């Protein structure tokens, strides 16, 4: 499988044709349609973009962007101008946004070839992609298993080789967990590192866009391309995005201290624990100081998250009222129309979270639930800060278990929520984290190791995870 860096470099050198590269990836995606990866395969648009790249005179090809001719898949909650964007929800079915998300603009400016929009749990709410209103996505490594979620389509696109890179969004683990379950690299950058303009909002204080790739270098390249301040997102960080690729050239990590988070290593299935131990040993052998560390508040992350995220979602999703876009059910008056539209347009998990959030924000419960969860969020940030006084990065499993089978957790929402127990704490803190593939579990499905760092600590995450990637068991 070729990486984005390899493809772009071959195309810039005039050694490869973007049309041929695109055709090859599209053909593979079409042959494997039953994996349910794409909601919309953008064949014509992709080939037109590729053709334009090939028509660049050879003498100018070195001036093409860093993703020249590289096929990329986009989670279908990222707005693409005039191309249907659904969030895998019936309520947005058929909606064609009038503008591109800022990350989509940046990909186009980098001469990437957008090949399609990928499946997700409706409005990014879920951990298995079974909540898509259209069809589930299957894990390319074994189609009897789920790919994780909510960005299951983007993770599967990269795992199946339909595109070397893809974008997803991560609110409580929606990039890292499917990356772990599909055996690819998935990164959630620092909150604000990447503009959220044009990402359809789920929980605005947690949402962050990030890449899926086959290796760590491509993740560094992608973050360099999509990172940076955007005047259309006032929460985007003003600092310049560092040259992450350059930093990967220094492979000596012996100056870094690694803490294995005790609370996030408990309640984890034994096969995943075994891989975590091996990962810690790899880093110790590379010269890092490795020790166990307690970050007490992380064990309350799940509780705080499932009050905060639904609260924000209940507010964000109030805009789907049948007036400006998407579905409208007919009714005699406006209020009945709103109710009929939302009742028909949203699936069960979305309804559940809207109700949970509405409850947490409602009069009489607000202080006991929403505000209390926000205080736990502060506690999480403080406990991480204490750990980072001593350690440069922290280590944990990405998911407490490897991929599971369809229907295994759909009847019990709480069982599904537990998939995110290890990824949620850094989301609450707004910190960056990556999932790197590291061997397999008892069911022969991939295990992901999570590397966490404080805000803007992506550089150390890349350095540590490239060592894990190099030393990972086959």
């Amino acid at each position: 499988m070729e990486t984005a860096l390899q493809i772009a470099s071959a195309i810039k050198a005039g050694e490869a044709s973007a049309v041929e590269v695109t055709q090859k990836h599209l053909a593979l995606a079409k042959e494997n349609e039953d994996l349910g990866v794409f909601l919309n395969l953008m064949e014509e648009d992709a080939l037109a973009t590729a053709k334009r790249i090939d028509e660049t005179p050879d003498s100018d090809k070195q001036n093409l962007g860093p993703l020249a001719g590289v096929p990329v898949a986009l989670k279908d909650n990222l707005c693409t101008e005039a191309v249907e964007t659904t969030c895998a929800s019936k309520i947005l079915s058929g909606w064609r946004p009038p503008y591109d998300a800022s990350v989509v603009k940046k990909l186009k400016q980098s001469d990437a070839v957008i090949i399609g929009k990928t499946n997700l749990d409706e409005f990014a709410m879920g951990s298995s992609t079974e909540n898509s209103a259209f069809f589930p996505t299957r894990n390319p490594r074994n189609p009897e298993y789920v790919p994780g979620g909510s960005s299951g389509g983007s993770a599967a696109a990269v795992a199946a080789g339909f595109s070397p890179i893809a974008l997803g969004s991560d609110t409580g683990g929606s990039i890292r967990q499917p990356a772990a379950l599909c055996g690819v690299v998935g990164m959630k950058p620092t909150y604000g590192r990447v503009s959220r303009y044009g990402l359809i909002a789920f929980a605005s204080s947690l949402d962050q866009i990030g890449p899926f790739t086959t290796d760590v270098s491509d993740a560094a390249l992608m973050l360099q391309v999509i990172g940076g301040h955007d005047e259309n997102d006032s929460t985007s960080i003003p600092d310049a995005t560092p040259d992450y690729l350059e930093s990967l050239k220094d492979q000596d990590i012996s100056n870094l201290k690694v803490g294995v988070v005790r609370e996030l290593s408990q309640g984890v299935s034994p096969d995943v624990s075994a891989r975590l131990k091996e990962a810690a040993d790899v880093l110790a052998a590379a010269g890092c100081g490795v020790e166990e560390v307690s970050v007490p508040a992380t064990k309350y992350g799940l509780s705080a998250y499932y009050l905060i995220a639904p609260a924000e979602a209940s507010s964000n999703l109030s805009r789907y009222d049948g007036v400006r876009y998407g579905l409208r059910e007919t009714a005699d008056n406006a209020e009945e129309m709103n109710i009929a539209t939302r009742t028909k347009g949203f699936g069960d998990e979305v309804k559940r979270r809207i109700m949970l959030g509405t409850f947490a924000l409602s009069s009489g419960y607000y202080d006991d639930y929403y505000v209390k969860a926000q205080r736990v969020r502060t506690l999480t940030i403080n406990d991480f800060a204490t750990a980072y006084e001593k350690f440069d990065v922290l280590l944990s499993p990405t998911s407490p278990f490897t991929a599971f089978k369809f229907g295994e957790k759909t009847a019990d929402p709480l069982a599904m929520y537990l998939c995110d127990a290890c990824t949620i704490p850094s989301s609450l803190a707004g910190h960056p984290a990556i999932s790197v593939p590291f061997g397999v579990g008892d069911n022969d499905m991939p295990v992901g190791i999570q590397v966490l760092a404080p805000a803007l600590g992506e550089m150390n995450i890349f350095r540590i995870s490239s060592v894990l990637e190099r030393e990972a068991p086959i």
Partner: protein
Amino acid sequence: MTAEITPDIAAKVANLSRLKLTDEELAKFTDQLSAILEHAADIEALDLEGVLPTSHPYPLKNVFRQDVVSQGATSDGNDTEKNSGEKIAAFKSSVLGVAPESEDGQFKVPPILS
């Protein structure tokens, strides 16, 4: 804390959320929401006296931009050509074009008072 979700509370929340539930759905959601809140009761025991709530993880404040007139989503920096009347009209029609119903350049809804 430890509010129990009763069918009455669930029905009230559904109404506030502008959702209509069947009796079967109401029973199911009542149970599921109760189970989720029961799990969340673990934060009840925490002493959070004096801990301030966090609403936003990254300390940014007073984010200013240049005070220049632009045309919202049609604007592309200060490129006045792109903000021309024609562009604005095209954008307006692309927005209204995907609305369920519009008339005379405006969104149209059923009667609000009936």
